[in-house]
């Protein structure tokens, strides 16, 4: 064995040890110094590099045991993985600090944009339609910067956002009509796809990268929810105390804190997800395992009520909208569960549960479609009804194919990767539909 081999062996050992959370990089340095000292001494006794390395590794002890001993001494390390930026950033601005600084800059930018928009964009519904447009470009910019994307990707992002801004603002929407509201509702989907393009660094054609974007979106939802809850408690308590002390805080909260906090938290959450990818990822499978059975129960309850309610064409319109929201939520849960699953793991109980969830959701969707079709037959169509019908048809196809592929996976006919690939590819179909609603529905329905 040559010196090169020894170096390679030590490098491999290093990367192996570095993965132990309880052993800090400085400790690895220390252990490496030890290992090299030992190897050198053993070599002088006439051993080959290979033998010397093996003996030195052996004397260092079983890595699990040593790592456990380190963990006992440094139990905080198992938790402090959540530390935001490395503390021993000795020279200048470390990359972690720079990321945070840029993220905070984008957060302030998004807050200022929302504040300015809320002040100057009139009427109210125009502002609501534009609000995501004031925030998402900042998210995309941060991610694009962080990923160091090419100029071409920057160009695509810029073009996408400008085109959306033009459509959302130049189309002469009828304030009493629904196409404007539909565009406002579907616009963020397209914007999020643009954010996704930034997230994957422009490589949106790759299934793996798209799955990463799905994971990122799910993690982001968790982080954002945590931040929102924390922020809500904090502002609630502060507002309560200041209110009791006689200060008028409602206007300050409404006019200044909220416009900055709501978009700002999104940027901070984006940064958090990126900064600490590895920590909450472990939470995702647990969360999906908790919520999949619960969602099945919920959907069964909905199905039961629908089945006993009689005439489908008289199902309340509001109820249909809420059920649509439920189905979209189920879809997200499904996507997230699939993204969190180890594709190489064997078939387990949870996979069966997941198939049950898909099938139940499929049934609910079919009943809803029947209700919608009968409503359209009875009362005629409208942009709103067609948009909902479209989404439900897309969901039906998505769920049906997922069920089929999962069944194949459960029976051992297909690898799990086919289920995954179907999900990531189908995302584009939703994007295309959102594009149709945003760009096409206005002219088709004469902006009514």
């Amino acid at each position, binding site marked *: 064995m040559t010196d090169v081999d020894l170096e390679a062996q030590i490098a491999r050992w290093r990367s192996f040890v570095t993965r132990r959370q309880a052993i800090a990089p*400085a*400790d690895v*340095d*220390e*252990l*490496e*110094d*030890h290992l*090299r*000292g*030992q190897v050198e*001494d053993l070599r002088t006794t006439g051993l080959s590099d290979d033998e010397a390395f093996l003996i030195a590794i052996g*004397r*260092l*002890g*079983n*890595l699990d*045991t*040593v790592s456990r*001993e*380190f963990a*006992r*001494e*440094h139990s905080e390390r198992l938790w402090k993985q959540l530390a935001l930026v490395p503390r021993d950033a000795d020279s200048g601005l470390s990359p972690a600090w720079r990321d945070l600084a840029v993220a905070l800059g984008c957060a302030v930018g998004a807050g200022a944009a929302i504040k300015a928009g809320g002040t100057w964009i009139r009427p109210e519904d125009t502002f609501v339609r534009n609000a995501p447009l004031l925030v998402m470009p900042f998210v995309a910019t941060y991610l694009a910067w962080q990923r160091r994307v090419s100029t071409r990707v920057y160009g695509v992002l810029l073009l996408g956002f400008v085109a959306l801004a033009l459509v959302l603002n130049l189309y002469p929407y009828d304030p009493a009509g629904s196409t404007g509201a539909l565009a406002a509702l579907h616009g963020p989907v397209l914007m999020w796809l643009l954010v996704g393009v930034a997230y994957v660094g422009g490589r949106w054609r790759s299934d793996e990268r798209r799955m990463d974007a799905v994971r990122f979106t799910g993690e982001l939802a968790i982080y954002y929810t945590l931040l929102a809850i924390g922020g809500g408690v904090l502002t609630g308590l502060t507002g309560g105390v200041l209110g009791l002390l006689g200060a008028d805080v409602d206007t300050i909260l409404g006019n200044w804190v909220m416009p900055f906090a709501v978009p700002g938290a999104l940027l901070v959450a984006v940064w958090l997800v990126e900064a600490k990818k590895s920590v909450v990822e472990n939470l995702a499978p647990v969360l999906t395992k908790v919520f999949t059975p619960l969602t099945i129960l919920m959907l069964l309850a909905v199905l039961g009520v629908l089945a006993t309610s009689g005439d489908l064409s008289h199902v309340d319109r509001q109820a249909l909208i809420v059920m649509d929201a439920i189905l979209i939520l189920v879809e997200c849960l499904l996507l997230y569960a699939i993204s969190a699953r180890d594709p190489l793991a064997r078939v387990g109980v949870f996979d069966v549960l997941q198939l049950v969830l898909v099938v139940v959701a499929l049934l609910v969707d079919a009943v809803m479609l029947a209700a919608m079709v009968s409503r359209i037959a009875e009362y005629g169509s409208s942009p709103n009804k067609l948009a909902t019908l479209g989404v439900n048809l897309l969901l039906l196809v998505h769920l049906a194919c997922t069920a089929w592929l999962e069944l194949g996976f459960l029976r051992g006919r297909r690898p799990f990767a086919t289920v995954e690939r179907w999900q990531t590819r189908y995302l584009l179909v939703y994007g295309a539909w959102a594009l149709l609603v945003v760009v096409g529905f206005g002219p088709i329905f004469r902006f009514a």
Partner: protein
Amino acid sequence: MHIDKDLVAASATPLVLGILADGELYGYAILKRVAELSGGRMEWTDGMLYPLLHRLERLGYVAASWGTSEVGRRRKHYSLTPSGRALLRERQDQWEVVADALRKAWESTQRPLLADGLA
């Protein structure tokens, strides 16, 4: 010779402190010294030394500083602090009592053991 791990654990701290009392050393050198002092009969799992050193550092008995080895590697050196020195003295007293008691106990049982063997 195999030495019971509880005994190794109990003697590790005073041994390390005693070795460091002679001057600053780094991990591998401490282990070499242990082998030297015991004539190679005390075998530690090398990796276990470091958590111990870190514990002693956290408790303030040793001070650590990063330096470089003769070939330019990063190397962590440990030295005894005044409170480490005090702990060492305390441990020395305790071990002397234990060793003394053991010696006396074994001296008095030596004869019956030998007698058994001869019988």
